[in-house]
């Protein structure tokens, strides 16, 4: 199963790269009579998803083996373990597949359906360990996600209604992005207003924008680490992807003002909400979850600010955040597996001593995620704040900085306190090729990308930004 997974994800990754190349060459790619439609934006999302999936697949091999030994998967005799593993290795590809499908689907309804499937699948990944808490987390995730997605569906539907004049209602193409995007200007204004609100709240729930964010800390802290990493980086991108699609429609129909203001509202709210929880957090995987909420807010703000700068910042941030956050989750996973706890109070410090590589990587990733140069997230956040101030949203910019500093302080105090210091009596960690390998790969990517973004990737990002700003 392991090897099958690995090979599969490797293949998917290659396909994704090929797709990105095609898109860079051709601009847009569409297949199956326009059922599949890919522009730079979807190509970027696909690429990021595929790469995260590959790394996590590599990591999860070592991770699950460790779980097997430690008996976290139930006893081997009664075949529980093998059942668990089978479940994991079936669900994860399904999960990733539905995300990729979502990204390349042309039809907004199909996009929605794929999104729903990601939820249903990931619910089972959250219940993976079958603990009391994981069930609770799964329940909250399922219910809130379900509500959110039904709102999104409602929105999609209203959007369809808004476009009914232009296209045959029965025809499949009525919900096709490629069609709607062309006639965006003629869409029915009032319906689009309603549609955007519903969609924003719906996909915002998946993206974890406050106040729909409440399921996130629970799900992330209960899911197995690789799944949590995918959830927090790739799935976030996908949810934002859906939002962006509708944002484009709405802004072309109503002008950027209306959706922009709503997005800024939710974005600032999410950033603000995440601050106190980071400051007084006791559990480091929940802390990471709140940081993801924070970053969802940041990207929503970037989208809301719009403009060339804002959109470029958004796409760069999406890319950088995917790398840094998945690295952060994976290294944190090492820690929680080694120390058998997620609580700061249990880990007095000394991670750097007990597990040097993980400690350093975790510290790097944490610094990157809280926007410390030379790591690249600073660049995108710089762009976003610049976009805010250039477009006269001084207040937004100031709040952005303020909340950013709050998260910085909290994360630094907690995670720093966990990593540094004397290691006490915890035993040194052994060598873990699978996990260390994937960590090192991601970490080097994180460092390199801070100084040098490969030209094709940068070009892809720029084109994606252009898709959003609509030139």
């Amino acid at each position, binding site marked *: 199963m392991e090897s099958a997974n690995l090979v599969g994800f490797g293949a998917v990754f290659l396909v994704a790269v090929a797709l990105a190349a095609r898109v860079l060459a051709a601009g847009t790619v569409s297949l199956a009579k326009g059922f599949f439609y890919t522009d730079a934006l979807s190509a970027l999302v696909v690429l990021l998803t595929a790469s995260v999936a590959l790394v996590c697949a590599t990591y999860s091999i070592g991770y699950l083996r460790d779980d097997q030994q430690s008996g976290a998967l139930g006893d081997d005799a009664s075949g529980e373990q093998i059942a668990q593993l089978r479940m994991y290795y079936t669900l994860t590809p399904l999960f990733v597949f539905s995300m990729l499908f979502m990204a390349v689907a042309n039809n907004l309804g199909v996009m929605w359906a794929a999104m729903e499937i990601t939820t249903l699948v990931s619910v089972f990944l959250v219940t993976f360990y079958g603990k009391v808490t994981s069930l609770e987390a799964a329940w909250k995730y399922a*219910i809130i996600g379900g509500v959110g997605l039904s709102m999104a569906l409602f929105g999609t539907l209203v959007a369809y209604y808004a476009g009914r004049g232009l296209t045959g209602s029965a025809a499949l193409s009525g919900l096709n992005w490629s069609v709607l995007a062309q006639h965006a200007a003629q869409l029915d204004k009032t319906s689009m207003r309603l549609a955007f609100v519903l969609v924003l709240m719906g996909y915002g729930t998946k993206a974890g924008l406050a106040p729909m964010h409440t399921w996130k800390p629970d799900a992330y802290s209960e899911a197995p680490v690789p799944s949590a990493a995918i959830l927090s980086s790739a799935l976030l991108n996908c949810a934002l992807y859906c939002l962006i699609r509708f944002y484009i429609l709405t802004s072309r129909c109503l002008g950027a003002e209306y959706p922009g203001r709503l997005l800024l509202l939710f974005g600032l709210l999410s950033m603000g909400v995440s601050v106190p929880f980071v400051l007084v957090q006791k559990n480091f995987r929940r802390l990471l979850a709140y940081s993801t909420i924070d970053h969802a807010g940041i990207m929503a703000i970037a989208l809301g600010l719009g403009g060339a700068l804002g959109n470029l910042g958004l796409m760069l941030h999406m890319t950088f955040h995917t790398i840094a956050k998945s690295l952060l989750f994976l290294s944190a996973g090492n820690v929680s597996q080694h120390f058998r706890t997620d609580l700061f109070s249990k880990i007095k410090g000394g991670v750097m001593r007990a597990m040097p590589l993980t400690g350093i990587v975790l510290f790097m990733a944490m610094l990157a995620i809280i926007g410390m140069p030379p790591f690249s997230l600073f660049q995108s956040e710089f762009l976003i704040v610049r976009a805010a101030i250039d477009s006269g949203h001084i207040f937004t910019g100031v709040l952005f900085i303020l909340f950013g500093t709050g998260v910085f302080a909290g994360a630094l105090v907690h995670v720093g306190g966990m990593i540094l210091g004397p290691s006490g009596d915890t035993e040194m960690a052994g060598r873990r090729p699978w996990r260390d390998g994937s960590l090192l790969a991601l970490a080097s990517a994180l460092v390199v990308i801070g100084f040098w973004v490969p030209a094709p990737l940068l070009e892809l990002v720029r084109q994606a930004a252009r898709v959003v700003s609509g030139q």
Partner: protein
Amino acid sequence: MTHVLDLQFGDRIVTLMAALVLVLQIAMVTQRWIVIHIRIFAAQSFFLAMIAATIAWFNHAPHLYVAAALTLAVKVVLVPLLFERLVKRMEIHEEIEPIVNGPLSVVIAGGLTLVGYVVAESFYRPDEPGLGHNALAVAVSLFLIGFFTMINRRKALTQVLALLSLENGLFLAAISLTYGMPMIVELGIFFDVLVAAMVLGILVYRIRETFESVDVSRLRRLRG
């Protein structure tokens, strides 16, 4: 048999049934027995199917028959059966105490209906012929009331039911606004609803297993 082709007539019928659906939804808000709750849901779904069929008949939108049939199959037969079995399996038919008491919740439901109309009002276009425009109002109200029921319930199963009734609202909106979505999308959506119902059912069952109850208000370990 002329009036059978009369849009006016069709509109009346649709509106009437929509009203019935709404009433059932409010009834669900106050309902205290799970089994009956399920049955009400079934009935509601049945009327939805009927609405779909009517619209299909009067607007000559054949694919809505499919939608109607699917609704019948999934929401009137399959899901209720599934849930009733679940209820039997877990022998939970004891009363469920809502967070907001009955009368007040009915009042709230009424208020939400009002909101529904306020929202739908901006969509009302007398110039356009066609039926069930005020069905949108009902749809939004269904959605909101279903949502409210989810907040109001403590039992996992009833939350699921509320979620499904909320999706009924969506369905109503779909058929009345746009005479249904593109076929493939509809299929996808029905499939999703089915899967969602099953997933949630399984979750409810496992929660029952681990917590010895399905009281979600006890699921409060994860905080902060």
